[in-house]
């Protein structure tokens, strides 16, 4: 994508981050969590462009989150940037290892196997007293390059941090989509054999995608843990992955920004439904999902960025 577009989006993001200081204080943590989920959803979309749906992203989400909690507890670290980096890298490592197994599968079995792996982590976490069992671990407030943020400023700082990560992630994924590896995503759905004839290895491609998705999701989990100030095994439960898939449908594969807008909309929908109609909030989400599938099949991203064509995205 053209450099100036990245600059302009960067400026826009910076302005939003700044505006965070003037938004009502309860909006910031919620948006931070939504955007963290957006990172995970972006990871899902990277996989989805190649026809792979992972039911186990929660593995990396929890991995990133617990890495933060454990780094604070046992390594005494407090710097937000460092913690998020550690969370991202650890999740990426999980993904790298899991990728050797997952890259051999497609379709439903890829989905099921990824689900199994995340539920195994869930079981391990529940049974581990050191890791807090089902109560989880608390996460203390982080500092930002030595600066301590107080009260509402902490939410603001995290909000700015997640926005920064969103921008970086969006650039990275767009870049990836323009590479040979990324461009082969769409063709992979149609016919893997032809890719192999081109000299590429489908397995390596999938492995790479799993790692990218793992890194993104781990980053999301790490920031979420700092925002909620808590981690627990439920972060590895399959319904968390289900939530990511849900938002991925809302978002569509057309544009990287769709993931984040979709995540924000989903969070808004969920919290409104819970506040206004607590007895049927699940129905509201279900109906929203159906309506999206019926009427907006290419997702929000498809709606807003109509210039983009095709599953792999067009180059300008």
């Amino acid at each position: 994508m053209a450099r100036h577009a990245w600059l302009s989006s960067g400026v826009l993001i910076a302005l939003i981050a700044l505006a965070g200081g003037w938004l009502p204080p309860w909006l910031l943590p919620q948006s931070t969590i939504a955007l963290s989920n957006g990172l995970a959803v972006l990871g899902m979309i990277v996989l989805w462009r190649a026809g792979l749906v992972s039911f186990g992203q929660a593995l990396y989400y929890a991995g990133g989150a617990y890495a933060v909690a454990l780094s604070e507890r046992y390594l005494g670290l407090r710097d937000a940037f460092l913690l998020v980096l550690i969370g991202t890298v650890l999740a990426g490592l999980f993904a790298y290892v899991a990728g050797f197994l997952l890259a051999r599968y497609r379709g439903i079995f890829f989905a099921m196997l990824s689900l199994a792996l995340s539920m195994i982590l869930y079981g391990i976490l529940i049974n581990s007293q050191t890791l807090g069992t089902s109560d989880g671990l608390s996460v203390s407030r982080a500092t930002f390059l030595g600066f301590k943020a107080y009260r509402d400023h902490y939410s603001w700082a995290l909000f700015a941090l997640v926005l920064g990560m969103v921008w970086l992630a969006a650039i990275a994924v767009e870049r990836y989509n323009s590479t040979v590896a990324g461009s082969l995503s769409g063709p992979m759905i149609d016919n893997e054999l032809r890719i192999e004839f081109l000299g590429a290895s489908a397995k390596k491609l999938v492995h790479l995608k799993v790692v990218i998705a793992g890194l993104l999701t781990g980053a999301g989990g790490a920031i979420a843990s700092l925002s909620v100030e808590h981690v627990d095994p439920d972060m590895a439960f399959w319904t968390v992955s289900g939530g990511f898939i849900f938002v991925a449908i809302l978002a569509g594969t057309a544009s990287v920004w769709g993931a984040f807008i979709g995540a924000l909309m989903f969070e808004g929908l969920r919290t409104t439904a819970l506040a206004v109609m607590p007895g049927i909030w699940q129905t509201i989400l279900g109906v929203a999902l159906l309506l999206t599938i019926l009427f907006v099949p290419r997702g929000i991203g498809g709606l807003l960025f109509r210039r983009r064509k095709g599953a792999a995205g067009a180059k300008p």
Partner: protein
Amino acid sequence: MQMPKRSWAAGLAVALASVGTPAFAEGPAPVKIAVPVFLSGPAVGAFGEPSKNAADLVIKAMNAGELPPPYNQKGLAGAPIEEKLVDEAGSTATVVTEFKNLVERDKVDVVVGYVSSASCVALAPVADELQVLTVIYACGTSRLFDDGSYKYVFRVSSSQTSDDVAAAHYLLAKYPDTKSFSGINPNYSWGQDNWRDFMLSMKALLPNAAVDKELFPKPFVGEFGAEISTLLAAGSPIIHSSLWGGDLETFVLQATARGLTEHSRLVLTVGEQILARQGKNVPDGSIIGGRGRHGMLATGNAVNQWFLANYKKQFNTAPNFPAYHMLSSLLGLKAAWEKAAAAKGGARPTTDEVAAAFTGLTFETAGGPVRMARGKGHQGIEEVAIGTYAYDKKTDQPTMHDLVTYPAECVNPPEGMTSADWLKQGMPGAKC
């Protein structure tokens, strides 16, 4: 709030009142209380619904001034209570987010709620950051105040440790020759901690009793076939369980159907909860606890009489211990609030003032007095009653006999000590 029609005289009175005399009359600002309980998911039947019922009943009665003394003042020191019922369900991130929304978006004054231990542990630091008075009504985890201390968080009900310690004491008193015991507890922190506390208590009180089987079925699945077979094979005389709600009902039904309870006696630390509904199916001779003195284990005092009568009248069933916990939490809040208000001549107290009044407070509940004696004055302790169960076929009613009430200092660790440490050291300082 609707302002009533005013004559010029009333208008003059209002003008005079606003000059600085204490505001007693129409329209003191309401106190907004958020009540997060389980409105969806597996805990609704056992916890959410009874708690919601209790909250509705008690808050309405408080506003009307219908509670027995010393709780008969209307509202909280005259200020009417506005109840905001919220669903506690969802991931921890959702729970924390919604908590922050309640405080910052909906501007509630107090939060009274939460059952899930993971939520309580996650929320306590957040409550302190936001400086909002939070009364945890039912979480059982001992980690809440073992692992941290808080300024604005209070818990009226004691941690689950006291249930298991009391059970062990009861066994020492009634069945001192117990040779061995097994446990079946749900596989998450509640079950794991209860089992740990029971095992350690037994080690301290009945060191000759051996541990047979330690089972941890998956919670909310209701599959106990293999577990019951294992227990049948082991043949332990005593089986400890902190299973609750649907799981407990299922386990009891299947265990009795397969004859497990003919040779093994069940010790159900939270069994009181299912007696109203399943009394017929709970085997006679089971040892039942109720997380304090609630339900069938409660005292006969005025508060309990009022609560039992009115709850039954409105909801056609007896209240279980979660309902009692909600009652106690609201009573504690009222007592603290009114103490703080009295110190100000009746004016509305600030959050800090209520928190200060709540710390170390002693107040009366349906189960007797609660003393906020642990967790630097933020954790309540109370007596714990345990008894043996029997179903009276003639009257078709569940009954308890051989009730023993243990003083709070007997079954709770002293201030400053964690449950695990206290138990491992053999319960030093216990006054039984």
